[in-house]
């Protein structure tokens, strides 16, 4: 565990970047430091690997003061990823990744073998090994940056706005990749961002800092969205926090209707049964893959023409998908009904906006009850 204990960073000109900050960063999870510019989030991160020395207070790593060991040894035991990757342009991809192992005295051969292994792990094609950074896209450069940080298998990973310089599509890919990597590797990650969406997506714990380097709230993302500590945090979370909070409620509680899902060779009885439960029926192919919506009276039993169906939009995965995904699907659907599929993409049912609304109210109720119970136990 990394324990930041009443740390202050004051510059000679009197500016206070971080003000009596205390934070316990749990092992094997992603802790996100988020806040507006000038909130001291980067300074805080850089104090953990002593790129910045605190004016007051101490930082403990597994109980030991980080100043107890030589600064280079400390830094080599922590992966460091920065914005724009900061790759060495005179070195090839493989040699960039091999940097820390080489510093630790590994042989060139062993370090390169390890680098090749990491390239695969972060999703870089082996053919890129001999390329130079200028030959890579921004997303690829950032993957090299992550691989380089992981090369010596450090227990701690410090990431300073690593994905903020790439476009939103690439950023989403990198975020998913980081979560997948974290699932495999279980590092203690401290992640700095100014993007609250990124914080909520990635963080196990999120620390919101306010200008002047003071901690505003430190909580898991779901709690942050449901119970912001004050007006500043609420403001920072933005106007659609209610909608975003739905990401944390699973869709398993949704009661799906299965009758309105019919195959293209459905009988008149099947279509009638579907029409009894919903104004539209969802037509699928023989494997269950959704093809589109249709009004029951437009359908000819036995041979439905897929070309004449309304688009079904993007379905959500029942169970693993969130209520946010389900609601989004229903809002975007031309019929107002969301299509639920299983992991393999086969339609398992449909659900109305109204039913999703009821599930949301129920989920909030359960959440409040749990919170009250927890408060009752601790209080």
């Amino acid at each position, binding site marked *: 565990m990394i324990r930041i204990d009443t740390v202050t960073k004051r510059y000679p000109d009197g500016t206070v970047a971080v003000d009596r900050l205390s934070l316990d960063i749990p092992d094997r999870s992603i802790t996100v430091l988020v806040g507006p510019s000038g909130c001291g989030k980067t300074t805080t991160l850089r104090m953990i690997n002593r790129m910045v020395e605190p004016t007051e207070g101490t930082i403990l790593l597994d109980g030991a003061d980080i100043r107890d060991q030589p600064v*280079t040894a400390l830094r080599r035991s922590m992966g*460091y990823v920065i914005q724009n990757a900061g790759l060495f*342009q*005179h070195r090839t991809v493989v040699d960039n990744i091999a940097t820390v192992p080489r510093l630790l005295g590994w042989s060139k051969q062993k370090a390169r073998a390890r680098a090749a292994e990491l390239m695969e792990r972060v999703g870089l094609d082996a053919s890129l090994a001999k390329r130079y950074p200028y030959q890579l896209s921004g997303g690829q450069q950032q993957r090299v940056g992550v691989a380089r940080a992981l090369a010596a298998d450090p227990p701690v990973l410090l990431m300073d706005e690593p994905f903020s310089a790439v476009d939103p599509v690439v950023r989403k890919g990198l975020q998913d990749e980081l979560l997948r990597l974290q699932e495999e590797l279980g590092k203690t990650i401290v992640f700095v961002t100014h993007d609250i969406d990124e914080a909520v997506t990635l963080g196990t714990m999120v620390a919101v800092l306010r200008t002047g380097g003071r901690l505003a709230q430190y909580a898991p993302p779901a709690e942050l969205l449901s119970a912001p500590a004050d007006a500043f945090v609420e403001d920072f979370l933005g106007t659609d926090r209610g909608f975003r909070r739905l990401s944390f409620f699973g869709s398993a509680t949704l009661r799906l209707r299965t009758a309105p899902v019919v195959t293209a060779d459905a009988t008149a009885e099947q279509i009638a049964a579907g029409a009894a439960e919903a104004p539209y029926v969802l037509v699928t192919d023989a494997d269950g893959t959704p093809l589109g919506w249709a009004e029951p009276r437009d359908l000819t039993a036995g041979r439905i023409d897929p070309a004449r169906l309304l688009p079904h939009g993007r379905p959500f995965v029942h169970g693993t998908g969130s209520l946010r995904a389900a609601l989004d699907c229903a809002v975007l659907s031309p019929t107002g009904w969301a299509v639920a599929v299983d992991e393999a993409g086969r339609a398992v049912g449909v659900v109305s906006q109204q039913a999703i609304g009821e599930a949301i109210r129920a989920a909030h109720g359960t959440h409040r009850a749990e919170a009250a119970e927890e408060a009752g136990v601790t209080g």
Partner: protein
Amino acid sequence: MNVLHYIASFFADAAHWHGYDGIPARLAEHVRYSLLALALATAVALPLGLLTGHYGRGGNVLALVATAGRALPSFGLLVLMFILLGFGLVPVMVPLVVLALPPVLVTTYEAMRSVDPSPVDAARGMGMGEARVLFQVELPVALPLILSGVRSAAIQIVSTATIAAYVSFGGLGRYIVDGLYQLDYEKVVGGAALVAALALVTLGVFWAAGRFAVSPGVRHAGRRT
């Protein structure tokens, strides 16, 4: 007779190819003075430029020294040194080294300052010491610019080393000085042509050094972005 005829007959004269005043001997002397001056200037200016550039301090002092160095007339300095120190290599070396110091010092400093700070930050954050940061991260990226500074110093030295002849030293300047004295314009033009050719060869040497020493990742990166 035009200049080309002068050059042609200078090089055609068999007498110019032998003995202590022959082209090979004078060329060798010229190269020797130039290399020595360049080595001395680089030995002083390069470490100074690297260190000040790395730590980002002393830029103002450097600019002052460089301006002062550039303002000193090489010929005047040579005569002054000759009067003070008498006949010898030192009075010849002083103006040449003073001439070469500013370009090496200033471009090295600027080259180090212009290195992208983010790889340097990443290098420190990964646990590289300052020496490693300087030699393994900053220097390889700054190298093309540093080489260009040393190159312009080298070319200035090659062309200015002719003044050694004024204080009875050898080198290609002998032809120019003696030719002027003897009103032998064939000799003057021939000597000047040799100096110009040597300057071009110097350019070629630095081009080859750049190809050899600069990483392809750095050489091409500038063109793409």
